[in-house]
């Protein structure tokens, strides 16, 4: 009887150990906020010590597009440059200014207020994306060499940082 009970106990233990299983869980989260470059910018050089994206000064204003499929879930934060990513060696301090504004929207009724409601801190502009759809933002970037000294000859480039921040 004890032998039988021992066998049954051993089998129950065996059964318990065989039922243990690690079940994997996986999933994919698709972004509800997609950022794309609509138009790359170009610096114009209206005078020796200024680089600007203003079209009146020979530049091209960069345009970034936000596509949002979830309403009232994201902020668009766009930061204009504060330094060159590539440039000749500079000995003077460069002064940076910049701004960002709404250039186009896909839903006037719900997005026309984005521009009026934007907030700015430093070089960064934040928009509250309250509606679904597409929004195009235009930025302006101006770099002025210190002491109004001429920029050295060479290639200059800078980047605008566009971020989708979840609320």
């Amino acid at each position, binding site marked *: 009887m004890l032998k039988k009970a021992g066998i049954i106990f051993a089998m129950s233990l065996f059964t318990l150990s065989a039922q243990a299983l690690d079940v994997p869980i996986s999933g994919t989260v698709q972004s509800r906020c997609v950022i794309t470059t609509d138009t790359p910018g170009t610096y114009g050089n209206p005078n020796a010590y200024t680089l600007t994206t203003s079209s009146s000064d020979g530049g091209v204003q960069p345009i970034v597009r936000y596509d949002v499929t979830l309403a009232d879930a994201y902020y668009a934060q766009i930061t204009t440059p504060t330094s060159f990513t590539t440039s000749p060696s500079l000995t003077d301090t460069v002064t940076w200014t910049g701004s960002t504004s709404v250039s186009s*929207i896909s839903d006037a009724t719900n997005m*026309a207020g984005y521009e009026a409601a934007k907030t700015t801190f430093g070089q960064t502009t934040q928009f509250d994306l309250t509606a679904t759809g597409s929004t195009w933002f235009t930025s302006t970037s101006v770099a002025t060499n210190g002491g109004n000294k001429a920029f050295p000859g060479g290639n200059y480039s800078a980047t605008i940082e566009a971020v989708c921040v979840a609320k």
Partner: protein
Amino acid sequence: MLKRLLLGALVGFLPSYCYSDNITPYYGTTGNAAQGGLSWSMKDVLPTPPGLDINGIFYRYTPNKNTADDMKVHVQNKHANGNGYVFRDTEDWSGHQGGIEVRKLIGIGDIPRSAWGDGSIEVEGTGTVEDATVIYSYKVDPCYDPQFSPSCPGYKTPIPDIPTVNLDDLYDATKDEYVNLNDEEKLSIEENEERLTEEEEKEKKEAEEKKRKYRLEKLMSISDAAALFAETQMIEQMNGIMQDQLNNTYLAATIPGGQYKETIILVDKKLPDSKAGLRNGLAQQILHEKMISKQYK
């Protein structure tokens, strides 16, 4: 059993496969309908092929307004039957600043061309619209008319429509009551017709005569040819007989071999002139001289 099911399924899908392989719908976009103003006729915008359905609209414009003003902008197409709109999209700019462009792409179900009336951008309130663009995307099904191609479903081989004409209904100038002829003209026409009839009969007779002559000549030429042939045959036969005779004459002779010696021996060593010849020559000479001398008498 499985094989049969697969075969059945294959046969079932075959017609649709063939159709899509041959004639498939194609897609396109129009130009800017608002290029000439804020209203347009779809006849001027859409291409001509039948079987065209509009499946989407893209528009953009920039409102020019004061922030405080109320303004609504409608992009729309009237229904072709005059009742309401087949498409209408409204943006409310009231209380918002102008100068911000709106870009909108709107997908719609395939709506046939026949439903689309005139299009426009209508401003309701205070403000204007600038830099407007309206573009329609469309789908064209070439088999909308099954007779477009034999590959289209429902195609029927056309049977030409041959009209039937009643000969009595055809115009006859001689029976035209509006053609008024006087007696002299009628007589002239009758005479002309008689003359034409006579000429036709004469021409027929001449043609018949020509044919008859031709047949006769043909017949005679055939008999002449037969006679000539017979004569030629006869001459050939005679020539053959003659040739045979000649062949017999010559071929029958036997020439013995050996040496043939001269058998005539000239006895006199000198041959004297013939006196008869001399006499004749003298007479000829005398006659000749007489004739000459007669010229000088």
